């Protein structure tokens, strides 16, 4: 069976499928200074996030997890985008990304100096309210993991 039309998709963008199929930074870090597990009880998705933080900077990231393409792609994109960033930058990026998915109406402009980059690919999730928590799982876990680092 085949349908000739190319599939383009608002939710399952190519970048998302790519991160899901070929996750970056997958696996635990032996050098982790922070490790936290996050779960979405309603769907069973789980992510375990490892961070190596040195001098206020995330120098290495790893994750393992189980879940849908949205939650796993989001974790993989998180790993890529926070690696090398200071904790302040990480927090700002996480808050910006969360606001992007959670703000009703239009998408808010990112603050000065925040580059949302590939994460823009997850904008499609805004149209699927039950899936927003999938995209946020890793990010909420990240914020919790570094909560006490000031």
């Amino acid at each position, binding site marked *: *069976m*085949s*349908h000739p039309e190319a*599939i383009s*998709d608002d*939710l*399952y963008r*190519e970048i998302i*499928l*790519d991160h*899901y*199929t*070929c996750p970056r930074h997958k696996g635990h870090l032996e050098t982790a200074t922070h490790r936290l597990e996050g779960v979405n009880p309603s*769907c*069973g*998705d789980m992510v375990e996030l490892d961070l190596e933080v040195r001098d206020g900077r995330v120098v290495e990231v790893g994750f393992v997890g*189980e*879940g*849908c*393409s*949205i939650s796993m792609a989001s974790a993989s994109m998180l790993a890529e985008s926070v690696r090398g960033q200071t904790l302040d930058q990480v927090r700002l990026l996480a808050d910006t990304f969360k606001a992007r998915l959670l703000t009703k109406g239009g998408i808010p402009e990112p603050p000065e100096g925040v580059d949302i980059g590939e994460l823009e690919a997850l904008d499609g999730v805004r149209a*699927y309210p039950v*899936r927003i928590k*999938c995209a946020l799982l890793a990010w909420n876990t990240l914020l919790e993991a570094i909560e006490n680092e000031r």
Partner: protein
Amino acid sequence: MEISVQGRPSIQAARQDFPILDQEIGGHPVTFLDSASSAQKPRQVMQAVRSFEETSYANIHRGLYWLSEEATRLYEEARETVAGFLGVEDVPTLLFTRGTTESLNLLAYTWGERNLGEGDEIALPVMEHHSNLVPWQQLAFRKGARLRWIEINPDGTLDQDSLAAALDRRPKLFTFTWVSNVFGTINPVRELADRAHAAGATVILDGAQGVPHLPTRVEDLGVDFLAFSGHKMLAPTGIGVLWGRRELLETMPPFHYGGSMISTVRRDRSSWDVLPNRFEAGTPNISGAIGLAAACRYLDALGMEAVRDHDQDLLAYAFEQLASLEGLEVFGPEDLAGRSCVVSFRFRNIHPHDLATLLAREGVCVRAGHHCCQPLMREIGMMGTTRASFYVYNNREDVDRLVQALDKAGRLFSGVKCKP
């Protein structure tokens, strides 16, 4: 009842009786494949409820005016209809409840509280739905009793060794599902009930997935109690049944206390009414009972043998069509005669929630997740499955649309190749 074809509704024409299927959602026809969760209702059931509410509604019992007498008569007539559908001769042993979950809790809190003690065992398969699991787990905590698990084979049938081992320990209770809501496995009820009885156990059957799909004669089942829900068999939500053997029901304490279940109430003591009132405290779901009776009449008119044949036909067709999809693995028994039309599957590396979302966009309604069977999911090493289930209104086109939507989802997800 409305007549569809040659004097009686037929399965082929049944779909026309379900108005909800006669619409498009998001530009797609509704392909409803989630009946194991809750079934759609035919016009005949909705009309029965509506006409009752438009002409005869009032509270039942004790009313001295025509409407209340009529409502009482119709409510008790509904009980007789449902009893007839199940071959229950002792009609007051058929209790109306809110559904399977309430029926099973009723048993845990009455039969269980009265009959289970420290060290006693409750045998149950790991395939049980949470509603036939958590009430017993919690009862076991309260009583110091033990759960004895019956394991399953990879094909979703009961493991004979662990079944024999569980029964050897002479459990007080053996509770199990007729049909697995994940695998579709039909458990051999009569054989299991006889063996459990021989081991001295009381036998409870969760009929939530069985009664809607398989011809049911309670005496042939050989169990002591049968629980099921109306909403999985074309009736409204909030109505279900607990049937039990009279000699057991009569020795059980009441579950809920209050109006309608008493004989006399003094300031310091009360006594209880006879069956069924003793277990139907408060104002029951009168309209729901009327609806359930209408659903039984509808299914009776189709004929449960015909329902079973229709299920088998769709199941065979679904297996054949799904086999055309590379990387699709169906869980549960391979022998179709041993299964009901619940089809859980895994499709390549696509997570069930992604799959359900993608299918939904093609108008295909399936369920994804743990299906209220977390211990079972752990057992098969899955976080969840995608599940399609069929009923009287489904046809081969529904299967075709499922397969097309799966194919499309598969192509979307297999477009990506990782760089080395």
